[in-house]
């Protein structure tokens, strides 16, 4: 069985413009594999093909890419899930391309940095050993802490495409809410002050591309809605 691929190629040092390159791969009839395995096999024949990968099991978030028009992790996307036709692989949209499927994630990380992604606790008497949380307080972090920062969501969000310098993006905001809702964090007001403008949060218009592509099944739109209502409750 022959599988056909069309893969985005661009090496800024050599190419004037990006192009799509056709590849084909022979596999056993009925055999399924992950897109990443197919890319690795293609790289055997064309070592110039570049992409990021590390854990190859959906934990590290390195191989986010656009497969048949939808962002996802190549290592946990089976070829069978992409239909029978040609498989079109492109880099994550909206981010500058370093080479082929490798994108420059600086804008993404800059927005992530802005939300201070660490626990802030200015309690004068911190516990000597560990911060104890009630099970229900800990439960509030479920669906938030699992984010692996693969950028599939933010790079599928039109608001992030148009304002990557001002809109935090779904991944950053999911993390922002993770710290806003953490019972051990004492900087809730400062965090909300930082988000209280016309762009950082409110550029989200709830189109939910982030929810549709998240490889971990998380719901950034819901977290953004919670931040909006926290900001609103503080204002009225």
């Amino acid at each position: 069985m022959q599988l056909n691929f069309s893969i985005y190629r661009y090496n800024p040092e050599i190419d004037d413009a990006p192009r799509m390159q056709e590849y084909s791969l022979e596999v056993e009839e009925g055999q399924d594999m992950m897109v990443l395995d197919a890319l690795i096999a293609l790289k055997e024949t064309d070592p110039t093909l570049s992409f990021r990968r590390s854990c190859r099991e959906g934990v590290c978030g390195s191989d986010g890419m656009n497969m048949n028009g939808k962002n996802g992790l190549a290592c946990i996307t089976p070829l069978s899930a992409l239909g029978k036709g040609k498989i079109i692989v492109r880099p994550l949209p909206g981010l500058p391309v370093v080479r082929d499927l490798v994108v420059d994630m600086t804008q993404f990380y800059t927005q992530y940095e802005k939300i201070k992604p660490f626990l802030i606790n200015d309690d004068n008497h911190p516990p000597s050993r560990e911060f104890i949380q009630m099970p229900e307080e800990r439960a509030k972090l479920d669906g938030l802490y699992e984010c692996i920062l693969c950028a599939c969501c933010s790079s599928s969000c039109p608001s992030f495409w148009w304002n990557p310098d001002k809109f935090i993006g779904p991944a950053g905001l999911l993390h922002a809410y993770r710290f806003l809702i953490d019972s051990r964090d004492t900087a809730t007001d400062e965090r909300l002050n930082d988000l209280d403008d016309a762009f950082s949060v409110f550029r989200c218009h709830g189109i939910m591309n982030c929810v549709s592509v998240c490889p971990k099944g998380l719901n950034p739109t819901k977290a953004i809605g919670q931040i909006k209502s926290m900001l609103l409750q503080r204002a009225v």
Partner: protein
Amino acid sequence: MVTNQASMKRNGIQDWVSLRATAIIIALYSFYIAFVFFTAPTLTYPIWQGIFASLFMKVFTFAALVSIMLHVRIGLWQVLTDYVKPAGLRAGIQYVLNLIAFAYVAVGLFVLWGV
């Protein structure tokens, strides 16, 4: 984090609430007008005039027109800041569109006045 100067001093929360508040009025008005169209057997000028003669309908229509103006002002600012990056061009387009939105209200007001 994004300075107010970078967003024409627009307030995110206020815009978010205003968009929804005006959307409710616009939606209610649209449903009401649709209801009038579908339930009236024939819509002659006297019937149409009769509908708009009541003070309630005048206030409701004016509220809908003002809501559209506010909704347009916020919504188009958001759309333009997404798609039109040169600040001068954006300011020019915004100026014209806001004028048109105001013209709708002014024309609507004079029409209501005349009924």
